[in-house]
């Protein structure tokens, strides 16, 4: 009958989008609360948390879906940050701090959104150019290759004085990564990431992660799927970089380097590297933890007792956390599963066909 088939199709649609809605809604709610009630310092924490969400989701789109850990992903962020920064620093400023910049770029000043999109495009092209041989490597190869890629990017950025100002800090970037702006971009990124992983291409890639040989045997071209994921992933990382530059107002090659990259990997693993919800959860949880630790490490007083600040404690705690998760819960806090809101419909008594949840992937545990 027409009516019940419409209902069941609605239900099926709801089940399909539930995982990403289950991420976007809490984030937007949290942001609204923060915007309305939170002091500026908390608002800043929310902005950096969302920045981390974007970066970790970017990392997940490639490494989580393919199972291939890339240690150099932050390199895409670095390139993106510099491209966007160079496009948005006012021309007069550019003439002063980067006198040797090619005039085409020196006279350019783009609105932020355009600059972000250009940055994504440039990095996507870069990833497309160098990515294919790297995704075909096996074992520890991609880990080392991406690390090498990051080093190359770092060396170039730190030494190309004409374009990047070299090792010193590049200033003058417009600061317009406000809470509404970053929330909007976060929603866009989440939708893109989810759309990708539920697409045929994304699902093929996930299948290859679960069982490489089985996937190949049904005709999945694993390298091609990894390649596509790499390009999308790089674009998201670049966006994160651009937003990062527009948050700080300045850039330096040293900050967009190993420490930040490692933090991203940590967040993904803690949350659960195999799911989008895991990426978001990891970013949120670790960002909150980092902030709490930072306040602790800055020193505080309990009554008459003063606890002095100790540098390095925060990092030690995070490292131990990562090791514990790797040993005890390698699937992360979410266990590799997506947030599934389909139960809400069932509470209302709807009886529809149980559509397979495209986002659920179960971790296979080896007993050897």
């Amino acid at each position, binding site marked *: 009958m027409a009516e019940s088939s419409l209902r069941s199709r609605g239900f099926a649609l709801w089940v399909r989008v539930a995982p990403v809605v289950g991420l976007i809604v809490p984030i937007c709610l949290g942001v609204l609360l923060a915007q309305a009630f939170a002091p500026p310092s908390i608002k800043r924490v929310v902005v950096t948390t969302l920045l981390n969400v974007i970066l970790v989701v970017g990392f997940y789109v490639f490494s989580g879906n393919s199972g291939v850990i890339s240690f150099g992903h932050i390199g895409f962020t670095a390139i993106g940050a510099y491209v966007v920064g160079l496009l948005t620093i006012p021309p007069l400023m550019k003439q002063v701090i980067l006198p040797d910049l090619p005039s085409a770029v020196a006279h350019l000043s783009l609105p932020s959104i355009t600059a972000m999109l250009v940055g994504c495009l440039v990095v996507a092209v870069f990833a497309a150019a160098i990515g294919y041989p790297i995704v075909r490597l096996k074992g520890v190869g991609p880990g080392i290759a991406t690390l090498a890629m990051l080093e190359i990017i770092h060396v170039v950025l730190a030494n190309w004085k004409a374009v990047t100002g070299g090792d010193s800090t590049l200033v003058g970037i417009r600061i317009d990564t406000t809470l509404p702006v970053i929330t909007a971009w976060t929603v866009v990124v989440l939708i893109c990431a989810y759309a990708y992983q539920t697409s045929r291409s994304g699902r093929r890639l996930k299948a290859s992660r679960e069982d490489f040989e089985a996937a190949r045997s049904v005709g999945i071209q694993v390298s091609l799927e990894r390649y596509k994921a790499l390009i999308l992933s790089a674009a998201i990382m670049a966006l994160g970089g651009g937003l990062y530059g527009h948050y700080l107002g300045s850039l330096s090659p040293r900050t967009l380097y190993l420490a930040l990259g490692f933090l991203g990997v940590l967040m993904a693993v803690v949350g659960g590297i195999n799911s989008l919800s895991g990426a978001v959860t990891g970013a949120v949880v670790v960002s909150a933890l980092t902030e709490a630790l930072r306040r602790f490490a800055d020193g505080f007083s309990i009554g008459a007792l003063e606890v002095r600040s100790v540098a390095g404690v925060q990092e030690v705690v995070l490292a131990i956390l990562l090791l514990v998760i790797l040993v005890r819960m390698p699937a992360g806090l979410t266990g590799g599963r997506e947030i599934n809101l389909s139960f809400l419909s069932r509470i209302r008594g709807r009886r529809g066909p149980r559509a397979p949840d495209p986002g659920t992937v179960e971790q*296979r*545990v*080896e*007993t*050897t």
Partner: protein
Amino acid sequence: MLRVQDLRVVYGRTPALQSVSLEVRPREVVGVVGTNGAGKSTLLLSIAGILTPVQGDVLLDGRSLRNCAPEDIVRRGVALVPERRHIFHGMTVLENLRMGGLFRKDKQGVAADLEYVLNLFPVLRRFLPSRAGGLSGGEQQMLALARALMGKPRLLLLDEPSLGLGPKIIDRFFEDLEVLRETGLTILLVEQSVERLLDAADRVYVLRTGQVALEGAAASLSRAEVQAAYFGIEEEAGTGP
């Protein structure tokens, strides 16, 4: 000597052995036969301690091997020659042989056993200083067997020793097996080829999809019976080999 009781081994969610029980008495040659995926290698790997069962037990002389590490099981007198032999290609033949006896404390005994295996397989003596990777298939087979013997095992586990070898070499191998049996060694042998196994073994178990489908004395089982159990076909009366 060896008793496997209701052994259940899984790979992730997939059961490889469902509830396998078998017995090997001292000085016996017991054969286990079955198709690919029947669970033969899994059985030997579980006995040797590489795989941990989720249920059931393996008893050697009445003592459980269940939570023992492979390196301890070797010290109890069980030696496994795995599928495809796994000799150390980069090391010399002599070094491979030495590896077999390294865990033993009686250095004199080890030296004597080295002489013994070299007399058993004279061809290896020639290749002592050569890289093991350069030997032919049959020679590598001998090396793997000799290496296992260097540990002075009481129970020898062999996983498809004839795999990848030519018929003449396989013949030679089964002759060697006879010699070893006469020295008092107990052997548990896994093979795909039914004929060879029926000739060499005292008793035979047929594994199919992780379970024992048939067991009995080799002399009393007909090839047809075994093949039927092997493939899971209903045996027709009057069907000859």
